[in-house]
């Protein structure tokens, strides 16, 4: 927790600046508070009403300070969130498809949006309160000591009890809060999971059973939270007591001394006004702990995510010329966290311009061979060469420029249909997009969509059938117009009609290109020069 906070401060310089500003604002506010209290005490004990102009001035100054403090705190929070969000997005950008596929998408997406908002209270509440607790009490006590040293002594003796109790209970809650976060996200995830799977639950007549489970999980959550809070709030109970009892300890004796004439009314009133101000920042800091815990937990998770560094980018630059043979030389690929290699000792040569069909049982590693060529995964042993150059030495971006890929399950993005087709050619004019869609037998259904090519797709193309999605992916490949075509189980999801259309389209697509086609169905194999069988895990 401390380490995370230190790291936040270290890595984001804006925080240090913000802390200094917050400190200055807190000092200024404390001075205003003392001034306000003394003017009020003087006026109430009979001083001239003209002092009220001074009071008005102090009030305006306090208002301005409060506005500045809140505005700057929110801006600091915004800056830090934007910075962390940017880093997580950058991390996602760099993690590569293999890692991205294994990530828990929901968790990372939540982290980037709602999750980081937990940092808001850290800056708007916890930090100013903590700084206030450090800065304000000494100033107030100093003012108190000048006014009435006996009261100042009472405050000085009782004040340390607050941080002592705070630390005692804080240590206890810290662990619990961390645990609660895990529990919370599990229980929160449960509700989402159940709702997402509701159609399936209904299909098996289990939907109503889950009402009870939803209720129970949610109620467990309530109980778990309350268990934590019962202890956490106990600390603030003790703090409240120390503070309010101290007011009583100050107010009552000062009243009695006033009766005996040891102090005057103005002094007594000032003591009454100032004493709570000495405790207030510490009490506030005590409750602020909860404001910080969740934010720090989130920052912790952000750092943990960022530290789980993706593989370093390839440094190679320069171009890649086309029309080279692709050679797999005794290639073995093992995915991280897997015991068994995905493919073992694969050797084959694909000549430039040759169209090769890959067949074999599921899990044999056909898609893995395409992933190797795409640079998603690197061989554990053996090598892949393009012309005479090792694939690992090629500049990845330039190499991928040579490839059009039709994946097994194409992802459709939350942008327009046209922009989805433009994936590999961002600036392509709409005529070319339509041309590609026609070639992929996708034009017909696209023009029937509400806004045609401008139709915005929902999350991952929801609303489109598998066949339609596949055809959009093929249109992408057409528009990409690259010399190498990697076609992965392209016909697996298509109905007979589109399968025929797609087979014809892909025959056109393959023409004049080097093509590696993972096929299940005969239609595509009609158009290849050669068929290679990959057997389970090996050649």
């Amino acid at each position, binding site marked *: 927790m401390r380490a995370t906070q230190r790291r936040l401060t270290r890595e984001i310089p804006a925080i240090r600046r913000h802390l200094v500003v917050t400190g200055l604002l807190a000092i200024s506010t404390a001075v205003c508070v003392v001034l306000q209290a003394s003017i009020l005490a003087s006026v109430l004990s009979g001083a001239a009403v003209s002092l009220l102009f001074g009071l008005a001035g102090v009030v305006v100054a306090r208002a301005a300070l409060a506005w500045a403090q809140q505005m700057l705190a*929110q801006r600091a929070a915004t800056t830090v969130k934007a910075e962390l969000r940017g880093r997580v997005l950058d991390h996602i950008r760099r993690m590569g498809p293999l890692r991205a596929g294994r990530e828990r998408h929901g968790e990372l997406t939540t982290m980037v949006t709602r999750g980081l908002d937990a940092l808001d209270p850290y800056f708007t509440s916890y930090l100013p309160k903590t700084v206030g607790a450090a800065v304000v009490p000494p100033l107030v006590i100093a003012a108190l000591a000048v006014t009435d040293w006996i009261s100042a002594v009472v405050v000085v003796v009782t004040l340390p009890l607050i941080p002592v109790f705070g630390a005692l209970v804080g240590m206890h809650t810290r662990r619990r809060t961390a645990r609660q976060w895990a529990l919370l996200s599990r229980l929160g995830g449960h509700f989402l999971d159940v709702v997402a799977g509701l159609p399936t639950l209904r299909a098996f*007549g289990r939907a109503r059973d889950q009402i009870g489970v939803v209720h129970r999980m949610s109620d467990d959550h309530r109980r778990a939270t309350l268990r934590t809070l019962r202890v956490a709030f106990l600390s603030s109970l003790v703090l409240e007591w120390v503070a309010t009892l101290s007011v009583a300890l100050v107010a009552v004796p000062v009243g009695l001394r006033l009766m005996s004439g040891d102090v005057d009314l103005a002094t007594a009133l000032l003591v009454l006004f100032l004493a709570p101000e000495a405790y207030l920042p510490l009490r506030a800091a005590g409750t602020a702990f909860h404001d910080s815990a969740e934010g720090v937990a989130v920052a912790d998770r952000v750092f943990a995510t960022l530290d789980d560094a993706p593989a370093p980018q390839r440094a190679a630059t320069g171009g890649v010329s086309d029309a080279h043979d692709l050679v797999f030389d005794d290639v073995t690929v093992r995915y991280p966290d897997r015991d068994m290699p995905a493919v073992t000792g694969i050797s084959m040569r694909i*000549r430039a311009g040759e169209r090769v069909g890959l067949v074999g049982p*599921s899990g044999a590693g056909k898609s893995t061979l395409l992933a190797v060529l795409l640079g998603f995964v690197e061989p554990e042993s053996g090598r892949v060469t393009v012309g005479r150059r090792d694939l690992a030495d090629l500049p990845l971006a330039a190499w991928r420029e040579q490839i059009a890929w039709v994946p097994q399950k194409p992802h459709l993005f939350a942008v327009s249909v046209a922009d989805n087709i433009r994936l590999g050619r961002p600036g392509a004019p709409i005529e070319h997009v339509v041309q590609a869609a026609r070639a992929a037998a996708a034009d017909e259904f696209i023009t029937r969509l509400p806004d045609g090519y401008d139709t915005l797709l929902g999350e991952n193309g929801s609303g489109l059938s598998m066949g339609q999605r596949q055809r959009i992916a093929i249109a992408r490949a057409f528009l990409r117009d690259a010399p190498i075509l990697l076609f992965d189980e392209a016909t697996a999801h298509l*109905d007979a009609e589109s399968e025929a259309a797609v087979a014809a389209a892909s025959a056109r697509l393959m023409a004049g290109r080097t093509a590696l086609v993972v096929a299940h169905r005969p239609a595509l194999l009609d158009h290849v020069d050669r068929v290679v069988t990959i057997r389970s895990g090996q050649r």
Partner: protein
Amino acid sequence: MNRRLLPAVMAAVAAELAAVALMGTAAWLIARASEHPQISAVAVAIVVVRALALGRGVLRYADRLLGHDVALAAVTAQRTRVYEALIPLAPDGVAAFRSGDLLTRLVDDVDAVQDLLLRCVIPATVATGVAVAATGFTATLSLPTAVILAIGLLLAGILVPWLVFVSTGRTRAEKAVRGALAAHTTDLLRGAADLAAFNATGSAAATARDLNGQLVAFERRRAMTAGLATAAILLIHGATVIAAIVSVRHAGLPLTTAIVLVVLTVAVFEVVTPLPGTARKSRDVRTSARRLESLTAARVPVPEPQEPATPDGHILEVRGLRVPGRLDDPVDLVVRPGRTVAVAGPSGVGKSTLLAVLMRFVDYEGSVTIGGRELRTLPGDDVRALITGVTQDAYVFDASIRDNLALAKPDATCDELADAARRARLLDWIESLPDGWDTRAGSGGVSMSGGQRQRLLLARALLADPVILLLDEPTEGLEADTAQALLADLRSATRDRATLLVTHSPVAHEVADEVHVLGAVADRPGDLFGHAGRHPSGRERLTPVDTGRDADEFGEAGAERAQRRAADRETDLGDAQVAAAQQRHGPLDPSGHQIPVR
């Protein structure tokens, strides 16, 4: 909830009243003491000050604990209520039911009830209660001061929060940007491979960065308002205190009364300070509540029958079935016990809609009977107990493989689970996993291949053991040979049970006793899967084809043709060590089996 709400609110009001009373009594004590009375004159005040000092802490503790309890209980009730409301709507009654974005927002909206109580209802009630009490008390001592206090509290407690409420109108636009950011982040993750392959990761990340920038702009604008509200309250507070001092002086009130009234005025503003935050929050809460309302008010797509009937027999008969806009041409088919019926047709023709009708997720026109009873007259759950299986949107829960299977039959024994997994050819894989049956299937089943996921769904459907088993593309994503083996297993497993299979796969048709082509008529049987064309008239109709008599069905279009061509070609394998080209056996069947060709 109501049962818990009253004590929570009472504790909260009492805690704040105690705080204000503590300052008031202490001020009275000091003011009175300055008149040098006997000690007995202030003895009661001393006791009261000490009691309030103790009681305030206890009340505050109770207030916070009770407040959270009632808020979390409300979340539980809300979650349960919304889930229950969603049941009859899933999957067809809520437009974007399958959007993760919508679901996440739904969960947020449901949980917003917590903020409604903790950050809106309770602070507002406390402010009202304490303000009324303090103004009332002041009025008994000085009416003008009470009027000043009332005006100040109204300005700070109602006008300022109201201004905040109406000026925080950008939340919708900001939420739209947040939604877009979430969607783009998901795209960056799920579409990582597509982006990388097309060198588009950079531009997609740039879009996300741009959205991040927009979010910053929104938040900075909000920062200005947040500070303004607090400043305004401080100014109103100061003005009220100054006016109160002038008024007590002007009225010539006794010193003690004057001091108590001014100190009260200073202290009571504590309760209105959090109200601008409450206003901001209540706007968010209102937005969430409106969205939930539209959800719970949604029309139930399939109403339950008034007088439920019970089916008599196991024959499924479909006569003239239509679903306007989704399944436009009448469907006629019969599924008898032991028969496997396949339904084929181009995508978008309504194959999945047909299954949704049979599962009573979608209402229909025409007639569908099971055991002689119209589906409309049967309770939906009864229908799904008889007719269920693997749907297109079948979900793999973020739970163990065992739990994912067992949801189809909670009382299933280990043997039954293993048997279902074996029949779906999944058992070996499960047992090869380090955690075996306890392996988490992960959110959306990301840790499994498409084939394994499909097998898991299949195993679940087999475990459910319905009278009529529905399979929507059960071999989707599977290799031809494994698909065939799977279907062969399916056939033996479903010998005594009617099965309705929606598929486009020619291999799958081999196991069907009967094939219906939806929305298309084959020109010749041999072209059924190669070039299924539209009927010349454009009218779509259902054409039963008896697969038993169509010896040539897979002939030219099938594996044999490709196999011959592949073998005929000279397969130049180069000097590298090469995987075997197809020589004697079919390319789709490396095990050595010939694909049956009749």
